[in-house]
């Protein structure tokens, strides 16, 4: 029988409730999608169980222990206002495209993630974003998504990733070289498969399909 000798290092997460889900942080993860038509933000907000009361105080304004549709909308609006987006130095108003709220039960277990999709129509060459929502309890991630033809300069962030700045531009929508090479290989392979290779393996001059084909 195997004897599992757990060391002191194991003591950290013995409570089942501490396993794998957030505890004392409000994780705010933002992905920025820059396109020729504007900027889209996907923000995932995951409250840890220890900070849920703070987050709930911001959402459940009437303190009835439930989250109504109006409260969802108001909270999404608050986040949209507290995330400041600037394109070429000018404020770009964010409008809410989509929101998804988890159940309170999921949030109480530290598993619930609020998902917001925001959009600004402004286009330009330099983007700045600063997330000012509930900074006292939050940990942040912010990244720019890759896109075909999009060139992004050095991304500058503060140490906590509350803010990001980068320059961007769009070239021709060319596939990268490796993708083009892959495409060529696929095309070549299709051509190879379509070609009657097996005929070539037959001996010449014995009334074979190959000789007939010629």
């Amino acid at each position, binding site marked *: 029988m*195997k*004897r*599992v*000798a*757990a*060391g002191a*290092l*194991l*003591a*950290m*997460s*013995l*409570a*089942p409730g*501490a*396993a*794998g*889900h*957030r*505890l004392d*942080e409000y*994780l705010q*993860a933002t*992905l920025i999608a820059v396109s020729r038509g504007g900027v889209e933000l996907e923000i995932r907000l995951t409250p840890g169980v220890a900070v849920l009361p703070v987050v709930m105080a911001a959402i459940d304004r009437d303190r009835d222990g439930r989250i109504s549709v109006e409260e969802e909308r108001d909270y999404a609006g608050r986040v949209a206002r507290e995330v400041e987006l600037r394109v070429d130095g000018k404020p770009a108003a964010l409008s809410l495209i989509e929101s998804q709220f988890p159940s309170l039960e999921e949030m109480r*277990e530290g*598993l619930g993630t609020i998902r917001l999709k925001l959009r600004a129509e402004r286009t330009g060459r330099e983007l700045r974003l600063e997330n000012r929502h509930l900074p006292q309890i939050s*940990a*942040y*991630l912010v*990244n*720019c*998504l*890759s896109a075909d033809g999009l060139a*992004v300069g050095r*991304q500058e*962030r*503060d*140490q*906590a*990733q509350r803010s990001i700045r*980068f320059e961007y531009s769009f070239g021709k929508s060319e596939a*990268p070289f*490796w*993708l083009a090479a*892959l495409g060529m*290989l*696929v095309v*070549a*392979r299709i051509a*190879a498969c379509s*070609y009657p*290779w097996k005929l070539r393996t037959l001996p010449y001059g014995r009334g074979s399909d190959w000789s007939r084909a010629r």
Partner: protein
Amino acid sequence: MKKISFLASVLACGLAQAQIPASVASTIVAKANGFLSSLDEGQRSKVLFDFNDAAQRVKWSNLPTTMVARSGVKMGDLTEAQRKAAMDLLAAMLSKRGYEKTLAIMGGDEALKTAGGGRGATMFGRDLYYISIMGKPSVSDPWMLQFGGHHLALNITMAGREGILTPSHTAAQPAKYTVEGKTVRPLGAENDKAFALINALDEAQRKQAILNYKVADLVLGPGQDGKTIQPEGIKGGAMNANQQAMLLDLAGEWAGIINEQAAASRMAELKRNLAETWFAWSGPTTNGTPAYYRIQGPTVVIEYAPQPLGGDPTMHIHTMYRDPTNDYGKKSVSR
């Protein structure tokens, strides 16, 4: 004629590199069929899904199965013979070290269950891993094995004689434990090789590689399929040959989980793209401290993220392994 022959041989070489031997593919299919035939009808119906079942394909997580339900059959619900057949299948699809890593991750979950004085019995342990099969095991048609539970999600697509492991999630909590006096570190190599690499860079290279901000978690973890972020850090092309070899070796900790033949093909691909592969680091550079890193190239994204959840982050690690061009074998299946 000569041109056509040359093209054919080039293609043949390319295909041969990407394929596992027919005998290995046949063995895997035989093991899969062996496992399926060991099940009763009710169990089999729980295990099998349509290959195109989009909901099942993405039904994996880092979280315990009591928090995020998985489909398939649970190891704890199988007889000893059925469980052996399931693990034999997994062993056939993975390399020796990949299989050992899997067992070590599951062993860590067992340690977590035991260490809580039984409090985690319903949430952790080897019995709480699930297996499912999408499609019909075949040496020609695509099918997929999903094996996972808390801190483990292996999504292995077989497309003819190609084997694809992306996207897959490995993790460890505790990241170090002892069994019969022997120390087990499921992701120890992922940690140690990364610290060796960051310390093998010179000062100017480190300046490029080390991000000036904290990364609190995986950026493209579970649920983030199909996204690619802008790469950061230092490019493989700015490393010397020794550093490049270290980077490739580090990536091999994930690429090498799948069986050796498929891994060899994947490693060759990663090697070809090494100059365009980025290595980014966030955190201190002394081994034993918590640091996040990311390897990102044209066909790979690897993330390693210590978790500040409930204690020492170095004892709780999450990792993610993706191929933005071929997750779930989408490229291979469409060939």
